[in-house]
């Protein structure tokens, strides 16, 4: 299978203050996401999920290592043209309306028929009636949906969603999960991060688990969860504790 995302030997460190030593937050990350699959990138808070996503989307640069998107360097405009990205807890321009916000992103994404695309997306995420409402008046769920709409507006081949289900009520989560599955049916590749295991189980083909900046495991979820642990009975954090303890023993 062809890869949509390929990370090879990625290292990344941060300095919180200039007098402090750099702290390694990602260590030798090797990960391959295949075209057409839904890949769940799972890990507890602070594991390095968002940092990895920021490296893929070009918001951060790796200290060393190589990142490619559909075989192209991740910084190239051609690669970026194929990506749709929803950041974690997104904040958008307060004073813009939903329509204006999507129009900006459609133009930035080189959409030719932006007017049509904007209304298509507004319809798809159920915000057509809120098209002329300023984003500061949107609820948390509506913001998440308009965020997804901006990620999908260019009809990207690769959709990267950072914690798309966090902070949503059950209905909101169901809607987002349905949207992800719909994209999968259209042959798109979806890479999303989460720390909630049951959600991942429903939609993922494969998962990658990251803990303390290192990839612990990659594979099919059911294969990884051995010993009869049911995902709806245990949180990922608990499972991690068990995994880490097992690893240390």
């Amino acid at each position, binding site marked *: 299978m062809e890869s949509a995302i390929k990370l090879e030997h990625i290292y990344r460190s*941060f300095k919180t203050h200039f007098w402090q030593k750099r702290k390694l937050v990602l260590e030798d990350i090797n990960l391959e996401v295949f075209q057409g699959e839904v890949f769940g990138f799972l890990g507890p808070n602070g594991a390095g999920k968002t940092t990895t996503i*920021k490296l893929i*989307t*070009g*918001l*951060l*640069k790796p200290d060393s290592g190589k990142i490619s998107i559909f075989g192209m360097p991740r910084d190239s*405009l*051609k690669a*970026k*043209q194929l*990506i749709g*990205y*929803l*950041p974690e*807890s*997104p*904040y*958008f*321009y307060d*004073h*813009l309306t939903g329509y*204006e916000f999507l*129009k*900006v*992103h459609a*133009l*930035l*994404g*080189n959409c030719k028929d932006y007017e049509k695309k904007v209304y298509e997306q507004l319809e798809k995420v159920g915000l057509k009636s809120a098209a002329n409402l300023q984003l500061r008046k949107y609820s948390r769920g509506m913001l998440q949906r308009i*965020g997804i709409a*901006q*990620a999908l507006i*260019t009809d990207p081949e690769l959709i*990267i969603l950072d914690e798309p289900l966090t902070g949503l009520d059950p209905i909101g989560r169901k809607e987002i999960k349905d949207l992800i599955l719909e994209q999968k049916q259209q042959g798109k590749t979806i890479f999303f991060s989460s720390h909630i295991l049951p959600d991942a189980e429903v939609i993922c083909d494969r998962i990658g688990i990251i803990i303390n900046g290192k990839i612990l495991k990659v594979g099919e979820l059911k294969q990884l969860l051995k010993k009869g642990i049911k995902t709806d009975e245990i949180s990922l954090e608990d499972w991690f504790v068990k995994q880490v303890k097992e690893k240390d023993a």
Partner: protein
Amino acid sequence: MHRIRAIVENTFKESLRQRILNLLIIFAILLIVVSIFLEPFAIGESPKILRDFGLAVSSIFGVLIVIIIGSSLIHKDIEKRTIYTVIAKPVKRGEIIVGKFLGLFFLIAVLETGMTIIHQIIIFIYEGAFDPHLLIALPFSLLEVMVLLGILLLFSSFSSSTMASIMGIIFFIIGHGSPDLKLFADQSKVVLLKYIAYVFYYILPNLENFNLRIELVYKLPVHHDQILFSLCYGLIYTILLLYVATIIFEKREFK
């Protein structure tokens, strides 16, 4: 081009909706109040005061907006994480800088044009005729805004908005003190100081190139070569500032 257009429109609308154009009302009130209250003390100088005050206030309002909004133009986007979705799209960093620059510049141009119209109307009310000679102040004031906005964007491409506004104010003061710096360099007897002063004089922006208040208030002629020089100076200086801002912004990460 459409990508820059998107950022220009976005910046323009976001800034516009912060009710900046309300400054036009404040400007009109200020002008009317000053002309009414100063007239008894002006002893025949009131036309000059009305002109000088109008030009000064419209220029100060433009500069204030550049410093207040210009300094947070990029930083606010980073702080509020609104820039994330923009950076992830197939956009060059330079397009973001140019788009932000043009978006705010157009808004200030609208504001300053509005203030110029109000100024002319008030002059007409008091004197029964417009003063078209004053109109030339508008493009010069906008050239100053351009250079200052370039400075603000340059500093906000790598530092905080507070630092960018402080630098904006410093450059504004130094920029208007530029002729004094030249005078100091000309007259200094210490060779090292003389050269240092010359270096600063040529590197730092000379905002006095855009100050025509004396010529306009006293109805002195403004030469074509002076206009051409100021125009070229403003444009080249701004392009260089935006170029450096782009180089720095290309290296910027978003943690």
